[in-house]
């Protein structure tokens, strides 16, 4: 069972009952309790924002929980320069722009073969690929490091593409093949009768019909790529090649005593992902639940 279909739940049976007033009242109480929990939940981020826009002297003088007496943007410009964010942003963006489309394409191709083509050893291939979900990255770092060193690809974001693709493939294939499976076979058969080959079916029918699943997978993959830490930590050395997570770790060390600058730096690192998440949350939520809630 997949839970992709839009479901209405707000209309519950209780609303049909005459006792409407207490129900609404209870809804209000639950809402209030949830709002308090939500404020508490988001307070680390709220504090981060408040701290990032106040001068350091104000922070030290009045304490972290006080309302700023003064506002400033200076922390951001300081953090931006010292944290080398222009470089790490560029590196992370290039990496995501190459890795994500490539990963989604090859995963979609494999997913198509598993879902719609008659393929030998299909179950074996599926099992082997899905097993990748359970493998921790650190079991592969020594051989990957040796591989990249002998290929001269250490300290380059391009050396990260292979391992990132490999660790993204299991999840992407899992979601995409289950989506492809729901596409009716009849339309594919009809296209074949008209003489379309597998490639044409894939590019002109399967992909266009699967845009929602492809977008979801691409977004989740972009988040994972943007956030990946361990491979980047062991493969990248020089500041010029670092990605956001590794750059942020360095920055954290340098700004240990500058609380407001540190807050600004952390914000700089997370703001794009927060904005993307807020704008695209519909896709993320749908994809997470559709991809895993089966069976």
């Amino acid at each position, binding site marked *: 069972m997949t839970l992709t279909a839009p479901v209405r739940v707000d209309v519950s049976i209780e609303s049909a009952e005459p006792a409407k007033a207490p129900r609404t009242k209870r809804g209000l109480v639950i809402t209030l309790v949830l709002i308090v929990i939500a404020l508490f*939940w988001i307070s680390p*981020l709220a504090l981060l924002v408040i701290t990032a826009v106040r001068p350091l002297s104000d922070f030290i003088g009045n304490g972290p929980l006080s309302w700023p007496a003064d506002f400033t943007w200076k922390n951001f410009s300081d953090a931006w320069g010292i944290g080398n964010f222009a470089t790490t942003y560029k590196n992370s963006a290039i990496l995501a722009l190459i890795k994500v489309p490539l990963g989604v394409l*090859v995963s979609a191709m494999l997913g198509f073969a598993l879902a719609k083509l008659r*393929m030998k050893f299909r179950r074996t291939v599926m099992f082997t690929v899905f097993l990748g979900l*359970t493998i921790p990255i650190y079991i*592969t770092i020594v051989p990957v490091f040796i591989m990249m060193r002998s290929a001269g690809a250490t300290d380059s974001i391009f050396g990260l593409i292979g391992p990132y693709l490999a660790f993204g493939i299991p999840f992407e294939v899992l979601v995409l093949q289950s989506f492809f499976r729901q596409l009716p076979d009849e339309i594919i058969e009809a296209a074949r009768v008209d003489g379309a080959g597998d490639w044409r079916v894939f590019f002109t029918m399967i992909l266009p019909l699967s845009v929602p699943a492809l977008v979801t997978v691409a977004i989740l993959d972009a988040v994972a790529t943007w956030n990946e830490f361990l491979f980047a930590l062991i493969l990248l050395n020089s500041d010029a090649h670092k990605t956001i*997570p590794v750059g942020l770790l360095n920055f954290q060390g340098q700004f240990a005593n500058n*609380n407001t600058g540190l807050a600004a730096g952390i914000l700089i690192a997370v703001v794009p992902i927060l904005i993307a998440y807020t704008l695209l949350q519909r896709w993320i939520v749908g994809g997470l639940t559709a991809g895993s809630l089966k069976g």
Partner: protein
Amino acid sequence: MATTVALSKPKRGGRWSPWLFALPALIVYVGFLVYPAVSSLWFSLTNWDGLSATYKFVGLDNYFKLPSDPVVVTAVKNNLIWTVVTIAVPTVIGLLLAIALNGKVHGKPILRLIFYTPAVLPLVSIASIWGWLYNPQYGAINSFLRLLGLDGLAQPWLGQDSTALWAVMVPAIWLRTGFPMLLYLAALQGIPNELYEAATVDGATKWQQFWHVTMPSLRPAHYIVLALSLIDSFKVFDMIYAMTYGGPGTSTQVMGTWMYFNVFQYYQAGYGTAIAVVITLVAIAVGIPYVRSQTREAS
């Protein structure tokens, strides 16, 4: 649509056609995941230091050394605590939030947005944020305790053995509650109202409805949450590395970080890899039922 190229293929495409689709992903997957993972098995049987050109085959020596390494003992214990706590607490909180959100609540989308937000942040940034909140002098947590007059409770949370691991698990819980919440929310919305109607007609109380209608209907969701959380919890590395670096001392080492330290700090690549092999085998063993269910369901 008429095509100019007459493809004299069998109806289902050529016998090789599926493999042309499958191969690009499979080559990358095998080359960068399967092959490295398997060759780690080999390295774990050697005394390689990670730098020298040569090394010796030492059989299972590295594995025999594990139980007498006090840090491995600590790491195993920490991995167990981590697994239990970061699965149980987020699952329970996630379920409670989902049930609350599934009722007649105003502003549902924004509440859901807030509770899931930590899950999209880079682990390193979560570590930075909480490291900053835990700062003994200027951290918000100690300031808050002092504000409440609980000065005695203010302490160096990440700097002492007794609290460090627990202090790292709090942000892990913060980050991992969103996923079960979303999953349970979706599952709750899939429970047909007729079930509750029937239960109401039979005179079941809210509490009875929860245990006899809601919980059984959530079984697939429980299973997925548990399986994915288990798989995830064995991968713990980033948070520990970025928040405590395994310290103070070695009190917050887990298998993943202790592996890293052995390989990249102490130049014991063979031994470090053996640590990784052990935890990976456990992770695979635990994950196999889930992987099989996904494979079977699809066929």
